[in-house]
């Protein structure tokens, strides 16, 4: 995956909007004030950062357990020649948010979020039926940390 060119203002903007995005009716105006930039420039920069793929989206990150949802990490051992086919079946499931081929005997790992434990189990059973592959279900029992923002340092090669 290619890297994007980021200048100092981009970095400062990215660091700010991950954790301190203003929750107001005019968030870009407030960012502009805080950063001493015209609002138009803030919007133009953010558009460029979205277009180049650095920013996936701007919005809310929900807490699945507070939303009443159950999430689990699943893994399965798929014959090498079937990996694309099985991965495609799993990816189609809307509750699957991450799906990766990994270097382990269990070579396909995915996360599943569903409105309850029973529903998650039903989805897993259905995926097992549809793929013909046994799926290991490893639900979260305790969360020590979830942090999805990244400090973009001045020394990073970008």
């Amino acid at each position, binding site marked *: 995956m290619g890297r994007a060119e980021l200048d100092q203002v981009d970095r400062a903007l990215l660091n700010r909007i991950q954790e301190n995005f203003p929750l107001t009716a005019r968030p870009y105006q407030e960012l502009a004030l805080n950063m001493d930039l015209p609002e138009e420039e803030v919007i133009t920069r953010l558009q460029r950062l979205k277009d180049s793929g650095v920013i996936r989206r701007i919005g809310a990150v929900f*807490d699945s357990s507070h939303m009443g949802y159950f999430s689990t990490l699943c893994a399965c051992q798929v014959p090498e020649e079937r990996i694309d086919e099985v991965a495609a079946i799993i990816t189609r499931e809307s509750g699957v*948010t991450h799906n990766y081929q990994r270097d382990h005997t269990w070579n396909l790992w995915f996360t599943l979020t569903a409105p309850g434990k029973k529903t998650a189990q039903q989805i897993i059973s259905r995926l097992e039926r549809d793929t013909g592959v046994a799926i*290991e279900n490893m639900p979260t029992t305790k*969360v020590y940390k979830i942090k999805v923002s990244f*400090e973009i340092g001045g020394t990073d090669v970008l």
Partner: protein
Amino acid sequence: MYYDDDVDIIQLVQGDIPLQSNPYQELADKLGISEEAVVERLKGMMDRGLIRRFGAVLRHQKAGFVLNAMVAWKATPGREDQAGNILAGYRQVTHCYLRDVPEEFGYNLFTMIHAHSEEELASLLACMVKDSGLQEYLVIRSIREFKKTSMQYLLKPGAYLGDSED
């Protein structure tokens, strides 16, 4: 918990809010409330813990974090919380979870580590072993990404009811 009238707001903010001066205007008009009222509802969802964070979600590879490793540790019974909290304390650890895993697998403490290089990852792992006292770990690298997206919650009002036994 959320209310049925939060649904439209959740639908907007779980995606990408419009990149324009007044991102909540259209939704506010649709709901017949003010933009400020939309913002207040968002704040309410944050206070209730529904929204963990509000802001930009980055593609970390594009932002210079080239190495994204899942590292699973064998936490001995009784040591899980202590080790989990120590590992979670690392800036490079973005996720740290304890999981129910098959006994024969045994690696029950999962960390996601974002590093800039293999060298950084190797020295981090050495420090983590020393700090946590956990000796056995497994680096499970991603070879190919098939899907990475944000969860799309409830598609219509009242759609979420959850399992009765949960």
